[in-house]
């Protein structure tokens, strides 16, 4: 029998009414699960580049090159000679593995099927059975548009938990974050039930993207907003609570302990209009894959990639907090944005103990193939 316990603070009740407008919301985390040990390398990120990994004209990835990138990245991350030993640090025959893909911008930008296929191939080599591998997302329309099945063994599961918006059936009623942002009645965000009850390990596979609300979206947002329901409520008018909500969600057990590996697919990225590719000119090709166990450190590195590209394109910084930027918004103007972005969600998550955000303390190792 699980014990129900409170991890943080007391709930605001309907406190959104009485809070100062810019005060951080008060969260209450309800979970019967506790932290469990896993192999972690905090503050370490391995980035592998290859010019040949993707063809820019078609966005077609090269499976052989991607495999080479994985071998180089995983062995450098763990220090093992054989990549199979690297994977065995987290995965074994007994595991049921969830792969949190990113389909929010599909079919134009998503965890590339070739990258996912390479992850699945490595899992199979560790002895995980096809039927115990689950690609998961929240919404089926986005997931179906990618066509992962064409790249995978038929026994690998591809599953979306929310066939229509708001359906709670596949969320865990006993594991949730409660918060009242803007006076909404639905104050709970429940964790996906497969995460709490079925998966023993999770691999997080985000992209490198600008994000209109959170500034950028990488490891933290993909695993947090992609594993709970009722999360879009954190934005209203030009205000977004992504700064605090993303990290808070990512701390909730068992999601935190089960998410053992992050593989950031940076073959293709989005520098404005994310999480979608609103216009082809906002797509770019960083041609890299990042490997790590520290989602904060990886996102910190990723933020620089997006910010540098925006700077090169003459777009305002993701740190811009001018109210004027949010006024008279035109969707294809990279100097306009509906929300004041919150790229500081990465530092906030570091403060919650999720990883290292201080660039001086991040050990970034780069490999060029």
């Amino acid at each position, binding site marked *: 029998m699980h014990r129900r316990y409170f991890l943080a603070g007391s709930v605001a009740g309907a406190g959104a*009414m009485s809070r100062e407008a810019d005060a951080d919301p008060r969260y209450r985390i309800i979970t019967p699960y506790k932290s469990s040990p896993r192999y972690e390398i905090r503050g370490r990120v391995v980035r592998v580049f290859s010019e040949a990994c993707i063809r820019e004209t078609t966005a077609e990835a090269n499976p052989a090159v991607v495999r080479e990138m994985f071998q180089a990245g995983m062995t450098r991350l763990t220090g093992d000679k054989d990549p199979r030993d690297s994977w065995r640090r987290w995965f074994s025959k007994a595991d049921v593995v969830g792969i949190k893909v990113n389909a929010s911008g599909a079919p134009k930008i998503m965890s590339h099927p070739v990258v996912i296929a390479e992850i699945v191939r490595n899992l199979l080599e560790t002895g995980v059975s096809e039927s115990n591998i689950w690609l998961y997302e929240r919404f089926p329309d986005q997931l179906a548009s990618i066509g992962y099945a064409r790249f995978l063994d038929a026994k690998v599961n591809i599953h979306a938990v929310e066939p229509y918006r708001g359906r*709670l059936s596949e969320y865990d009623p006993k594991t949730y974050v409660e918060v*009242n942002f803007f006076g909404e009645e639905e104050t709970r965000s429940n964790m996906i039930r497969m995460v709490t009850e079925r998966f023993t390990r999770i691999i997080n596979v985000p992209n490198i993207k600008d994000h209109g609300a959170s500034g950028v979206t990488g490891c933290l947002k993909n695993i947090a907003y992609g594993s709970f329901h009722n999360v879009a409520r954190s934005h209203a008018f030009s205000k977004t609570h992504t700064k605090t909500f993303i990290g808070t969600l990512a701390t909730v057990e068992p999601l935190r302990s089960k998410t053992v590996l992050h593989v950031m697919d940076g073959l293709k990225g989005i520098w404005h209009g994310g999480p979608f590719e609103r216009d082809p000119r906002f797509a770019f090709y960083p041609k890299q894959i990042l490997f790590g166990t520290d989602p904060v450190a990886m996102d910190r590195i990723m933020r620089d990639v997006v910010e540098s590209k925006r700077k090169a394109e003459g777009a305002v910084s993701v740190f811009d907090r001018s109210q004027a930027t949010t006024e008279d918004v035109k969707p294809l103007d990279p100097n306009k944005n509906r929300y004041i972005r919150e790229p500081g969600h990465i530092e906030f998550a570091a403060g919650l103990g999720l990883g290292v955000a201080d660039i001086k303390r991040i050990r970034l190792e780069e490999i060029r193939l």
Partner: protein
Amino acid sequence: MILTALLAAALPVVFSGGDENRYTRVPAPGVRYRMNVAAATSAPWVDSNMWRYRRAPEKAYLADARDKSVALIMAEAHAEDIALAVQAGLGEKKEFDSMLDFLRSLPDGPAGAWTDFTVSEDGSAQAGEAMNLLTRRNLLYGVAKPGAAADFRLTSAIANPYDFMQQVREKVGDDRRLLRLFGSDLTLARAARQGNRVRLRLVNYGSRPVESLRVRLRGSYQAAHIKAHVYGHGSAKVSDLTVNAGYTEFTLDRVPVYAVVDLTGE
């Protein structure tokens, strides 16, 4: 052909339809799936008559159900225990009969309303809108008799009914509310209690059944003492029951237009 029937409490009475002046007409309930401008959520707008019924429960009402959801019209009237005449065409007859059968099948339940607070109101449009918003947020209230003390006064001086509703909500406190529903913005509830017996009536205004409606209710109840009667499905079990700190939570797997849950407390 027009079917007309009077729904009074749980027992319908066929009625001639000749004396329309006896009735107060109400619009057909439903949902408008429009996006609120820059809202925190995309929750649709619920058109409910429950606040009207609560405001004047002694009146008899008349609703035109032709080409509308007659089951929903009957459900919200039953939930509020008011007398309602329904005009319906042959196209609604099957649904009308089906809901009537369901209402007849329900065992007797507790009669006394169970509420978090009382309101007094001056009959103004502002007071009416405040009641509407309290109802739509499942902030369970009773309307005090004229001259009687009440926890909140609803008057024409309410400048912004939405803000007023949120202030009431804050004063009551989400954690202390006797009932909360999760998993549907479109389900409105009414509660009744008599001794240790409780009845919840859940009206789903949405066009599809709610799958996995999570209910949080004040009191301690064991699974064996919770009986859900679900329109179109008969009796149903509840799942994922927890009892903690004086509140019970459970999940109803499916709530179509109407469900009634009877509970017996410890």
